[in-house]
């Protein structure tokens, strides 16, 4: 059970429990016209579904802080659409549905350490390290050769994720990727 909060605690970044689900305040504005009452205008994002909505609160409104917990996990394997992780300190295994893994699945490789977010004890998602390294498993050799600056081509990474990279990248290369933007950063190892 999260702590009880009042309207004056509201601010950007605060996590609340509303109708049994965790929400993040992504935008916040305090308004108080003239002699009128204070309005606390929030843009809320559901931390499970990602849907957003705006809601205005007033002084006197009460809130529950979302009961959230983060634990370090190691990715083990994928089976069907279930992703299996292991707690790095308790060795307890936890599985997460593909929908909850979200876009992070593009960067998950065996033994990668991630932070798993729990809401009221149940896992709801993971956050990746900012940078990961992934191997190129497929690159179309036909597009090679044109070295005009800025030109890119698509390659497929070991996770199945397809990404635009510079033309000099070849099959077997290991690339550094920014998981926040999903983009190529640099080549860290060549296939040769």
């Amino acid at each position, binding site marked *: 059970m999260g702590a009880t909060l009042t309207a*004056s605690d509201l601010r950007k970044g605060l996590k609340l429990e509303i109708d049994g689900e965790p929400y993040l305040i992504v935008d916040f504005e*305090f308004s108080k016209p003239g002699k009128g009452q204070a309005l606390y205008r929030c843009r809320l994002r559901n931390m499970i579904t990602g849907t957003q909505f705006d809601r205005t609160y007033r002084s006197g409104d009460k809130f529950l802080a979302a009961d959230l917990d983060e634990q370090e996990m190691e990715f083990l394997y994928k089976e069907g659409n279930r992703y299996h992780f292991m707690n790095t300190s308790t060795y307890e295994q936890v599985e997460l549905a593909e929908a909850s893994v979200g876009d992070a699945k593009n960067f998950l490789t065996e033994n990668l350490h991630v932070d798993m977010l729990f809401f009221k004890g149940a896992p709801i998602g993971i956050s990746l390290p900012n940078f990961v390294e992934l191997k190129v498993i497929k690159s179309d050799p036909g597009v090679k050769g044109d070295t005009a600056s800025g030109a890119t081509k698509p390659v497929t990474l070991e996770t199945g994720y397809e990404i635009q990279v510079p033309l000099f990248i070849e099959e077997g290369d290991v690339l550094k990727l920014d998981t926040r933007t999903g983009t190529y950063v640099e080549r860290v190892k060549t296939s040769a």
Partner: protein
Amino acid sequence: MSRRNVLAAKRWRLEMRSRILHGMRLFFVERGFVEVQTPVRTPAPAPERHIDAVRSEDRYLQTSPELYMKRLLAAGYDKIFQICPVFRRGERGRRHHPEFTLLEWYRLGADSEALKADCRDLLQAVCAYVGRFPRFSYGAHLLSVLPPWEHWTVRDIFLERAGWDPFQSYDADRFTEDLVEKIEPALGFPAPAFLSDYPPEEAALARLRRHGDVTVAERFELYWAGIELANGFSELTDRREQENRFQECLDRRREEGRDVYPWPQRFLESLDDLEAAAGIALGVDRLVMLLTDASSMDEVTAFEPEHEP
């Protein structure tokens, strides 16, 4: 940025702030106003339903100097002004600090129309004094202090922009929400705008008058670029009526579990000696924001409220 650099980067705005304050003082002194100082700590802040005072031992920090200023008015001080810090609990946002600076001025034998004329003259004089006359940039907008300034009544603007008449069926929650979301953001472009004649429920210390088929409070707000700058009114001088409104306000505060302020007996007694008068409070920090192209009060105060010395 290091802390030293954050402060150093504010230098131009803080220098402008100093000049704006100086320009205000010049304006009032040249017109025969007397600058006064009244207690910052008071045993009885003005009973306002939605303004919470900060406690200071057995007293409160002022939320506005208005009760003391009106005591002076009642004693015959006919043109007075004050620039002072005021304190309001729980107010923190881009345009709100729990400690901020108010300019208040009062005129004996005048009504809210005289204050509107003062607003025009004051803003033009201050803009000229700090090199912002007649136009200046604020964000993506080019603002102007030149006439014409728009005049709206609350009723007209609610009918046009919110689609209902707050004098027909007053609803406090809806009033505030529509004001903040549908009306304020578009008010005061490029020149400042007045919004006048409030529902009586929205003005605890303003005089009432009949206007057509409804009773309106002679209160007005001054907006510029969507920012509420000042709130003025023809002062209520009827002691019984004022006592009733204070009582109602304190009752509501008790019901809502808020601090119930002590009864301002001396102020109420002084109303017996008060003739017609009008007074206004202007948010100095917000005017500095406008004149220095700042989007938050944090940018125009040397230290933010959460800052340690």
